[in-house]
């Protein structure tokens, strides 16, 4: 047998071998999904006629999903993290900004994404509408509608005081 052939075949098999990998039945895919809202203060300077938007840091922010027992309080925060409902398309929160309470209703569409046998299913969202009471909150704007693994570092909602 020609050694030359054997070397060619071994090289080919080895080159493909680099792509193969064992299946260890562990989920290693990114499944972190979070909806983030930043809190901003808007000031208008009548002299210069310039509107300035600055990130507002609050002493205390408490978030509670209405109908849940979970209450999360954070100190010196300028953003809120919401957990959207994976089963229904509406998530209602009671948010306490220092001592002022507002209700935030987020209407969203859920998408089920099958990842693998090891990882199961992931639910991503698309935010359709945000409705709030206006005690602390002046207005809201949806900056990033999609809530998925690639948007976890982005701010989805802007809350203006």
């Amino acid at each position: 047998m020609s050694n030359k052939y054997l070397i060619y075949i071994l090289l080919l098999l080895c080159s493909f071998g680099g792509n193969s990998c064992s299946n260890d039945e562990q989920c290693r895919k990114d499944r972190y999904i979070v909806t983030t809202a930043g809190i901003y203060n808007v000031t208008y300077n009548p002299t210069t006629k310039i509107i300035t938007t600055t990130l507002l840091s609050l002493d205390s922010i408490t978030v509670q999903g209405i109908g849940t027992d979970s209450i999360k309080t954070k100190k010196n925060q300028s953003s809120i993290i919401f957990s959207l409902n994976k089963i229904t398309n509406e998530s209602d929160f009671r948010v306490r900004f220092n001592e002022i309470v507002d209700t935030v209703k987020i209407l969203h569409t859920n998408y089920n994404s099958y990842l693998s046998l090891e990882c199961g299913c992931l639910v991503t969202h698309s935010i359709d509408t945000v409705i709030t009471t206006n005690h602390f909150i002046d207005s809201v704007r949806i900056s990033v509608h999609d809530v998925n693994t690639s948007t976890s570092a982005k701010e989805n909602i802007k809350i203006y005081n």
Partner: protein
Amino acid sequence: MLKKISKYIISLILCLVILPIQAQKRGQHIEQKTDSVKVNLYNGFTVYADLASLASPLFSKGATYSYESALQVDLLHKYYPIVELGFASANKLSNDNIGFNTNALFGRLGIDFNLQKKKKDSKPINNMFQAGLRLGMSNFRYNITNVVITDNYWGGTEAIPYNNISTTKMWFEIIAGVRVEIAKNIYMGWSVRNKNLLSKDVANSPNPWYIPGFGVNSGNSNWAINYVLGYHF
């Protein structure tokens, strides 16, 4: 990835087609000098059964099994076109109790090349070192069961059914191995296969965990070993 695959295929064609032709030319040169034994174009066919696949449930803890056989034609004792047919089944339960099951037929078409160098004026020998290519295909249906979404924050669960999904998968294989005539017309041999999917999975879709004839679909290439027993007609 497609570029990578085409690069591999081109290299393979170069190795498996051009080099044997060069070898043939060298062989012809020798024949002119030595009046070697004449080789027929058609030299019968061999039916093989794969014994290694019978042991596959041991490696997959009973989650998969596969049976396959092949029919191979001998042309010039150098080229061996082959048809492989098999049946495979999978019934797997993940750590989170998500189930996958399928069973289907699969087929492969391809060719092996005998790399054994024939000595001057010698009779054709029936043992060979081989290299080959296969194109495999399976059309099958599968179920993914017990996929449940649980919302720990709001409470509640939702089951998502993925039943009776139909798909067709194609792949190619690179093969190297040995065939030996252990008794008159009875052959035994082994081969190592590297399998690469041509049909890519769609992201975030319920893709199959197992592909009959290809093996576990981990998104990368698969390795397999065949150990065959055959009879030459």
